[in-house]
């Protein structure tokens, strides 16, 4: 199919493109409004629809910096990065063990992982908060980094991927050469699992970045706030200064959009196949 005889435009293409353009406009319109509204002076926002940017960006940014917004940013970056790293480490080891070894309890472990994927975690929050209080983790960032690292989705996803991607013969021959199990995992397993780990890292970064309920109940110290808590803060402190408030929203959303625009190629299809294969 490499040779195209003639560039002929089908009527179906035209119809489909029109439909898709409309759908995409609906999908991105709120982003567009958000990005624009962040460049307006608050009282201008009450009149008319804002389709083009204005000139108040710097001012809004200044008022945003009067609260610790940059600090929330640093906190969020720290939490999400550490959480993503730890998730990949913990889940890749577990997923690798479940797919590449035969051992007693393997099936049971796999079933437990599958089962927990179905349970909405919010429902155990009462017990979680009291536990955090008892072990002195309230008002620390640890509850946002360590508990989410045991991601059932992560194990499931790595296991599924590893099963088809690492040939057993490679592992076997490394063993015959006298390579230790951990070294096999690091030097052979991880490189093979690279793409799956990348996807998992991005997703857990996203989930961590967007997480709101857990930070809200474990953090009361304003210095530790993450971006979503900062946004809630904005909504009350900048009740009248909507321009600055919306700029805050834009700043919270942009990193995710950039990250995914850069890495979307494997990510979207990877995410989908994980869910569908089930």
């Amino acid at each position, binding site marked *: 199919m490499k040779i195209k005889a003639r560039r002929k435009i089908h009527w179906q*293409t035209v119809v*489909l*493109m029109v439909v*898709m353009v409309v*759908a*995409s406009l609906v*999908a*991105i319109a*709120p*982003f567009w*409004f958000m990005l624009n509204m962040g460049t307006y002076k608050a009282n201008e*926002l009450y009149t008319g629809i*804002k389709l083009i940017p204005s000139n108040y960006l710097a001012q809004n940014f200044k008022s945003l910096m009067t609260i610790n917004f940059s600090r929330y940013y640093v906190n969020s970056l720290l939490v999400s990065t550490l959480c993503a790293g730890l998730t990949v480490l*913990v*889940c890749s*080891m*577990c997923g*690798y*063990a479940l797919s590449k*070894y035969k051992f007693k309890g393997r099936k049971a*472990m796999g079933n437990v992982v599958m089962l927990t994927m*179905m*349970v*909405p975690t*919010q*429902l*155990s*929050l*009462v*017990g*979680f*908060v*009291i*536990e955090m209080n008892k072990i002195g983790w309230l008002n620390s960032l640890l509850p946002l980094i*360590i*508990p989410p690292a*045991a991601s059932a989705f992560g194990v499931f996803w790595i296991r599924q991927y590893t099963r088809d991607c690492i040939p057993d013969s490679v592992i076997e021959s490394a063993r015959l050469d006298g390579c*230790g*199990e*951990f070294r096999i995992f690091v030097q052979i397993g991880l490189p093979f699992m690279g793409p799956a780990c990348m996807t998992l890292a991005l997703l857990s970064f996203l989930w961590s970045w*967007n997480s*709101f*309920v857990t930070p*809200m109940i474990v953090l009361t110290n304003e210095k530790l706030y993450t971006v*979503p808590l900062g*946004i*809630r803060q904005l*909504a009350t402190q900048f009740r009248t200064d909507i321009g600055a408030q*919306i700029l805050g*929203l834009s700043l919270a*959303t942009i990193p*995710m*959009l950039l990250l*995914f625009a850069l890495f979307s190629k494997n990510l*979207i*299809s990877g*995410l*989908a196949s994980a869910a*569908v294969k*089930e």
Partner: protein
Amino acid sequence: MRRQKTAPYLFALPYFLIFLAFSVFPILFSGFISLNDWKGYNEPTFIGLQNYIEVFGDPRFYKALGNTLLLMVMIIPFQLVLGFLLALFLNSKYMKLKKTFRLLNFLPYLTTPIALGVIFALLFDPAFGTVNQVLEWFGINAINWTKEVWPARALVSMVTVWRYTGYTAVLFMAGITNINTDIYEASEIDGASSWQRTFRITLPLLKPVTTFVVLSTMIGCFQIFEEPFMIFNVAGKLVGGPNNSVLTGIWLFYDTAFSNQFRNGYAAAIAVCLFAVIAVISFVANKLMSGKEDG
């Protein structure tokens, strides 16, 4: 050889340690708390099933269940149909720029739910919001999105559908790609129209994906919280929206446990009941949907 036997356990250990400490324990602990009168600051007193009896007589609990069912009915059909159509179009051989369009439609899934709530509250503001201004061009009277029962429900449904349609489409696309192309080729030779192919081949073979989407959306409806929480927070601190019309399961739970009541014991009982309802509903839905397959 001995190392080879212990290795898998060591590899799986960190996961299961964290899982036991921070998932299993809190669940069991919540179960225990639900049998106590506990406000967090006082000492717990064991009261048996008292909290559960109160849940069964609590009108707000039934309200939350009812709202969840309504939201399901308002969300699932749109999300399914729009997501499926999007997937069909994106998979069509006539389509150009597939990847770009897929990414654009996927972007809503990436937004911070809490930011989404604020943006939609502003866009749908009854007085100066963009949406009402556009409606006015078409001669439609301003709708009081945040102050009236049904508009509030419609608003929450729209936010959810907007956020998840692209994601649903991606799931369907993966499902469609998995369908063996031989089937399409054979049907084409047999002279099936593209309508017939869509309804007779694509749809039936996508059943597992559809089941997955419906089930996860159902579970998701119980958990809708951040977006309405912020929408009605911006619109004047209304728990549950106007007349509790968008009070969802998690919102009720959150409000009881952490917002102003701090009734930990009672909230834990609500959580257990919600979990039971979710489990039963997903089980029944799963049975119904896979049951149809045999017939």
